[in-house]
């Protein structure tokens, strides 16, 4: 047992050493920023520039906001405007700034069996989806995408809850896209994740371009006055970084080389 336990002690030490040193900063964000690969580019830039070690927790916007509310995250990068406004109104955030946007797209199988492509508005498209009873895959996870989807159903005056054709995956955007493609159903996705995963999918854009499909990402600094354990300096540094000129330019170029189109459009003034 002796050599084994010495080995174990060495391992524990290595792990502890690895965990220490840099200043940690917890970023709670949506799955779309991670699944699209954007954070893989921006986070190392930020770490190199500031010496913070960013711990990116990629969850739905709903969960990210809950983590912020509890003070378990320092800074949030989310896309659920109404929930964010509530978060700010309740005093959990000290500052909220627009970072970038892209848009949502309604995706469906090749032949567009529900006839969504012929519709004029997104509300009409959703009514059509309900009427045709084509399979629709919802995130069902309180994410920003799910929040918008619920809003769109409401705007179309239809209630899909409990219907057989309406299925909730409870998973992230990437996983939901895969399921929708596999089962030849419709779904709502942010354009960034869709473009990043498009290669392996058989889904096509069935509806796009409405004002109601706009997808805006905000960076929110969690208020350290309300949650004292939050790193206000780190949160401010990250937010400042996200809206800075060079990063905004990097966001604009991100994905063009790989996907032939930008995934996000910078919004900070």
């Amino acid at each position, binding site marked *: 047992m002796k050599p084994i336990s010495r080995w174990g002690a060495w391992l524990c030490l290595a792990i502890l050493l690895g965990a220490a040193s840099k200043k940690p900063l917890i970023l709670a964000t949506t799955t779309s920023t991670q699944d699209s690969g954007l954070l893989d580019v921006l986070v190392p830039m930020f770490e190199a520039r500031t010496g913070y070690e960013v711990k990116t927790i990629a969850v739905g916007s709903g969960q990210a906001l809950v983590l912020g509310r509890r003070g378990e995250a320092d800074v949030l990068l989310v896309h659920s405007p109404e929930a964010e406004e509530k978060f700010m109104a309740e005093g959990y955030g000290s500052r909220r700034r627009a970072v970038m946007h892209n848009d949502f797209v309604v995706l469906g199988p090749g032949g567009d069996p529900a006839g969504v492509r012929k519709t004029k508005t997104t509300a009409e498209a959703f009514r059509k989806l309900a009427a045709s009873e084509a399979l629709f895959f919802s995130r069902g996870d309180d994410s920003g995408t799910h929040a918008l989807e619920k809003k769109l159903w409401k705007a179309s005056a239809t209630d899909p809850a409990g219907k057989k054709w309406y299925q909730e995956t409870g998973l992230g955007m990437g996983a939901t896209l895969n399921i929708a493609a596999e089962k030849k159903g419709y779904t709502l996705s942010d354009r960034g994740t869709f473009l990043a995963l498009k*290669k392996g999918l058989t889904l096509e854009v069935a509806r796009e371009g409405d004002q109601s499909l706009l997808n805006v990402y905000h960076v929110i600094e969690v208020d350290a006055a309300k949650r004292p354990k939050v790193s206000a300096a780190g949160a401010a540094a990250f937010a400042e970084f996200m809206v800075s000129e060079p990063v905004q330019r990097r966001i604009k170029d991100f994905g063009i080389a790989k996907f032939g189109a930008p995934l996000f459009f910078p919004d900070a003034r």
Partner: protein
Amino acid sequence: MELLAQGIREALGLLLSLDPETLRITALSLQVSGAATLLSLLVGIPAGTALALADFPGQRVFIGFVNTGMGLPPVVVGLVVTVFLWRSGPLGSWELLYTPAAMVLAQAVLAAPIVMGITLAAIQQLPQALRLQILALGASRAQMAWTLMKEARLPILAAVMAGFGGVISEVGAAIMVGGNIKGHTRVLTTAMVLETSKGNFAAAIALGIILLAFACVINLVLTGIQQRSRG
């Protein structure tokens, strides 16, 4: 099916080219699960032996609890450990959440009942007369326990393998307390989840093959030790 072949090719490619990211997450997987298994042995073997030798009212119920613990759902353990380690939680001041140490802790909680349960059964299965014999030779209770553990080393090594196998392959607790942070807490299983959600199925399969290969090597080594000590 073609994905599987592609996965195998990618796994070989990643290993042969010594891809730094793959090496790092593989090393972290082994470190975290290795450390967690060691911790669980430190707790599980003595606790299992003590429980086997003890005699108290309600012992059967307690053993039932331990046996239930052998099947603890990783997600539940992950969630409970997360709540404890939150900044607002009782152990928040340790600042362990989203670190490899937190993953070690959660996986040790998962493995300890497995080690304890198998150790318990192994010791209980030794003939009752052996205990009396050892005591009659003038051994103290501690010496007797040690002798019994040595006597039960084959099933106890099986407990080591079961514990390690349980934690290196679990993902629920690792992703919850570790956060799957690139370069920091990303291990093979959480990387597989991420690659799958990104639609990189072949990459996920490649990582799965690497995981199985390493688990296999480690189990072969442990089996070697176990079988050698049989004689």
